[in-house]
């Protein structure tokens, strides 16, 4: 078995999920300059709602793929509504307050959601049912499961659709304009508040999908999962250059690979001193390094702006 190739495959799967979540951070940051620390919790809610829907429908005997689809059809609107509420009541009133205020509000929302989730779903880890038959393919001495293939393709397709929306549609152009200068965008007739809401809601839809993917691939969901996942995805967004859409996709993928390869080799690297359960180290090494050496991230500051 080829460990290197295997870790690449695992890394791409993990990275695709990070990328989906990182997009939510980066889009909101791009438009409001706000780090929406509650975003990880939205992923968590997505995963747990998906879990609930699937286990509730399991006795119906419907094919698992259909269950997953139904789970997403419920989880996505729930997350979107949640994001709408968060933006409307936790952030909008603080739009013109000092930067620290919405940040504290974000952390407050985050804690609130964790506690609500704990009350609803308890403290235990919830195991997801198998969504796809446990098929796998051999490539070059490594294995890729059907679930992994579907995860990668679905994430890639979703991101392509998002890129199309942002780059090619009038609505996407309005989002970019709002991100660049909301006051001028309003002069053009862009309903800025609605665009901001839309940005949160789209990010939440991606979060719901990511939540389902986490549950399906790592078969666990619990009330606290949003914290670490959110932090990692935020790291991915910073790595790519926060505010930059392509950067978030790239940063997510890269972080997934770094973590996966790092986790795969950490035992060899440290002579057995640290095991693969220390793989989280890499995300934070990346975060610190980026912040110290290249705060703009990989894709940051590429466009020259003249006065």
């Amino acid at each position, binding site marked *: 078995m080829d460990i290197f190739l295997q870790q690449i495959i695992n890394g791409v799967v993990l990275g695709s999920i990070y990328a989906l979540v990182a997009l939510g951070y980066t889009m909101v940051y791009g438009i409001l300059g706000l780090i929406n620390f509650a975003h990880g919790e939205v992923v968590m809610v997505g995963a747990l709602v998906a879990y609930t829907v699937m286990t509730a429908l399991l006795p119906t005997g419907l094919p698992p793929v259909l269950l997953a689809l139904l789970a997403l059809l419920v989880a996505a609107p729930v997350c979107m509504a949640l994001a709408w509420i968060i933006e409307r009541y936790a952030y909008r009133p603080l739009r013109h307050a000092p930067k620290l205020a919405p940040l504290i509000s974000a952390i407050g929302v985050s804690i609130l959601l964790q506690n609500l989730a704990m009350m609803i779903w308890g403290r235990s880890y919830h195991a997801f049912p198998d969504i796809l038959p446990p098929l796998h393919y051999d490539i070059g001495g490594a294995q890729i499961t059907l679930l992994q293939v579907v995860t990668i393709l679905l994430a890639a397709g979703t991101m392509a659709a998002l890129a199309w929306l942002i780059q090619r549609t009038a609505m996407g152009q309005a989002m*970019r*304009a709002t991100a660049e200068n909301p006051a*001028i965008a309003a002069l*053009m007739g*862009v309903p800025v508040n609605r665009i901001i809401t839309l940005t949160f809601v789209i990010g939440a839809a991606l979060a719901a999908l990511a939540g389902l993917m986490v549950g399906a691939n790592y078969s666990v969901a619990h009330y606290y999962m949003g914290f670490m996942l959110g932090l990692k995805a935020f790291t991915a967004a910073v790595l790519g250059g926060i505010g930059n859409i392509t950067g978030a996709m790239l940063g997510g993928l890269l972080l997934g690979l770094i973590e996966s390869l790092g986790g795969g080799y950490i035992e060899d690297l440290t002579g057995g001193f640290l095991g693969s359960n220390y793989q989280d180290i890499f995300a934070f090494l990346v975060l610190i390094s980026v912040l110290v050496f290249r705060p703009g991230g990989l894709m940051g500051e590429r*466009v020259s702006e003249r006065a």
Partner: protein
Amino acid sequence: MLEVRDLHLHYGGIQAVKGISFSVGQGELVALIGANGAGKTSTLKALARMLPQATGRVHLNPVDGPAIDLMRLPAHELVTHGVALVPEGRGVFARQTVLENLKLGAFRVQDRHLVQQRLDELLERLPRLKERASQLAGTLSGGEQQMLAIARALMSAPKLLLLDEPSMGLAPIMVDRIFELITAARDSGVSILLVEQNARLALKVSHRAYVLESGRITLTGNSADLLQDDRVKAAYLGETVC
């Protein structure tokens, strides 16, 4: 076309506009001149609803419809009533292409053919922009950006065009180009409120003018007369009066 009564505006404790009244007639080009900090930009921003703290009565009286109370509209609805502002410092979207900037000017126009038609027309008139259509607006020269900002406003086919110092920081040749655009808009019947520090130029192209000093209108009249006025000459035209 535009009726402003007793417009007040303050920033915190600073009173920037102290109860001014003025009007712009249908098809008229009216200049608003004044020194730095007189309150010109503040006035335009208030009219464009970018400063919610402004108070006063601002009405739009289109020939073909009922009067509209601008102070009741959110900023993003103004353009649908035919009001467009070309802001100080141009305000083009640097990270979007020239073409995208222009299209955004017609963001609220539903009819795609109409948008395309206006686009073709403007690009035909402005070859400099046409050549650079797919370039990012941030890479244009200052003059080209100003041209783009005005063209973008024209994409909404405004009835009232508010211009904030379109000549600022431009070489004379570019100023001429920009003013050709403005006078063409004037001649096609667009009502225009022009804020300028270049008073001579503003008075030459406008029908009437107001002089703003520390948030108050101190002088008003026909532009031709103001060009001969000793006070204006001394304060804004840089001429020594014997």
